[in-house]
């Protein structure tokens, strides 16, 4: 497309998209489901265009008003074939709109971005890298660089930003439109992905700014929908459990590798672990990379001086915030404070 601007550095949309040689993201489709909020949506789309040259934009207009339509028309004009803009005259709901966008995507990666998200420079490359083995989500921008682990496995993802590999979609299909458009739908998708051997990750180097999302519907209706969806989910996959693990100070480090493996496998199915470790044990876990192996495995380092008191205090806090917490002992002789029994890891594995 010819740019008529005489300026040396031309900032117009057509020029940004013209130089295909400088576009590293030709393997990605970025799907944005839109419903009104033209200001916010425009800012989101503009940020995507600026930071992801070569990626194809797939915008699904989910029954927006004329004002938003006009904005999308203006946006789509310079994109030509580098953008797909489809419209539904009536609002299909979020999941159906996302699935519509996924059905149009045919590149190696499909990346979902909601309009209330502002992506930043360099967000896409680490996200796609993390999604190589299945799917990945970005982290909310804090301005700080990530620590040692750039990619951490997780069970919790959101529709705000979610990258999916083509292989994954081919194997497990799209999102279940019968579940709620949030937590349980995503959990079901993650479980289906894991069942086929795909991993879900959080890319700490991919940072985005997530604005406030308007949630529609009465509290009662949303609660009912969540309840029905959670029942459906539990019927399919069983209940997710929350465990507290303590090995005792004299635990044999040789067992840690097996235990870490069991916890990782369970975390990938949605179970949560809170592991209380003494200083040396925490160091051993860190050296082996188990401290950041999964977001659902949280390692709590006990204080060196008053470990017992620290453990008591933390465990009590955890118990109050996590009803149904199950105590797990890494050593039959050692129990968590206040507990008379605990299950073993072989029982967890079962």
């Amino acid at each position, binding site marked *: 497309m010819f740019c008529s601007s005489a300026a040396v550095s031309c900032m117009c949309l057509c020029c940004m998209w013209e130089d295909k040689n400088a576009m590293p993201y030709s393997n990605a489709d970025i799907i944005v489901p839109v419903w009104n909020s033209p200001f916010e949506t425009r800012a989101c789309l503009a940020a995507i265009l600026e930071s992801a040259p070569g990626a194809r934009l797939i*915008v699904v207009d989910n029954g927006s008003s004329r004002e938003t339509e006009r904005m999308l028309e203006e946006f789509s004009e310079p994109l030509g074939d580098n953008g797909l803009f489809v419209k539904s005259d009536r609002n299909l709901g979020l999941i159906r709109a996302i699935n519509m966008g996924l059905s149009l995507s045919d590149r190696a990666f499909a990346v979902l971005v909601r309009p209330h998200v502002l992506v930043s420079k360099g967000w896409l490359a680490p996200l796609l890298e993390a999604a190589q083995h299945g799917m990945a989500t970005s982290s909310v921008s804090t301005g700080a660089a990530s620590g040692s682990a750039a990619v951490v496995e997780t069970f919790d993802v959101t529709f705000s930003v979610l990258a999916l590999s083509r292989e994954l979609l081919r194997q497990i299909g799209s999102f279940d439109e019968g579940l709620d458009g949030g937590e349980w739908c995503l959990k079901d998708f993650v479980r289906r992905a894991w069942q086929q051997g795909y991993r879900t990750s959080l890319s700490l180097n991919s940072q985005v700014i997530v604005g406030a999302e308007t949630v529609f519907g009465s509290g009662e209706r949303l609660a009912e929908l969540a309840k029905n969806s959670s029942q459906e989910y539990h019927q399919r996959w069983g209940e997710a459990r929350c465990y507290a693990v303590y090995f005792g100070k004299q635990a044999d480090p040789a067992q840690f590798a097996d235990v870490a493996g069991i916890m990782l496998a369970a975390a990938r199915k949605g179970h949560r672990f809170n592991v209380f470790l003494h200083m040396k044990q925490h160091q051993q876990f860190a050296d082996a990379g188990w401290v950041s192996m999964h977001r659902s495995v949280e390692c709590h380092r006990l204080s060196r001086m008053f470990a017992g008191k620290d453990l008591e205090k933390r465990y009590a806090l955890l118990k109050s915030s996590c009803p149904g917490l199950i105590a797990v002992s890494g050593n039959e002789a050692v129990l968590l404070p206040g507990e008379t029994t605990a299950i073993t890891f072989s029982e967890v594995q079962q």
Partner: protein
Amino acid sequence: MLKIFDYLFGMFSNDLAIDLGTANTLVYLKGKGIIVREPSVVAVQRMPNGRQMVLKVGMEAKMMLGRTPGSITAIRPMKDGVIADFDITEEMLRYFIQKVHNRKTLVRPRVVICVPSGITQVEKRAVKESAESAGAREVYLIEEPMAASIGAGLPITEASGNMIVDIGGGTTEVAVISLAGIVYAQSTRMGGDKMDEAIVQYIRKKYNLQIGERMAESIKIEIGEAYPGPELLSKQVKGRDLVSGIPKTIEVNSDEIREALKEPVNSIVDTVRICLEKTPPELAADIVDKGIFLAGGGAMLRNLDMLLREVTKVPVLIAENPLDCVVLGSGKVLDELNLLRRVAVPS
């Protein structure tokens, strides 16, 4: 005391007339003619506290929007011919007043602003205050049909009746004028913009193709018509397929566009017919003799004059310079202050 300063500053300022249209703003400078013709568009940025900050106005705003996508967006402060956002309109007026004078200080001109005929007292006051805040020392409001009639050269000060149909971007105003006053006026929120919108909707329904407003406008201008002409015109139209989302080109012809424009055109024709019916017979007779004058951009729709002639059985003429009639008329009264005081809307 302030009046003395106003008078002094007024000596360094040029009187001007402003036609604040829905689509375009025209500014007439006394002694110079039309010197500004820019889109009625403002580029604004939404701040974190939710307020809007005006960045650019007019042509600069339109150019800015094309170059730097982001949280900057376009606002048209005039909707359907009336001011929808007074703060932004004030910014627009300030921009045009300062642009015309090429400076920001010692600028206190006399300003004539064209307003729709059905404007309420509250709206009149708001327009006046906006203009005064923007730097005007004296503000006169003149109704658009009146300005259009003067611009079209109609003898408005005479006793005989004159009918003007001003088809703008946002509204169509039909008025009967006699003895420098509007005897009867009828307004409808149907104008060029709604015609473009009708074309967009028609093509969407028939071809499942989404086209932009600019494309719709170019279709209207190139092959649009209100009444069948001697030849069938056609045009290639670029848009996006609504199902696949990819760009697509189709061909449309003037018969289809006439069909698309049926509703907006009929609305305008009905407004004219009603106005004629409600006009006193003495004046109606004058109009039958002299004819109906069309002004505004919408007057240039192919064969609209023929359709009106067919329906009303009255001669229909298109003003010589339909797009500029309103501002030219407002500009003319700047040179005739007595006439201005007669035709200006009391506020």
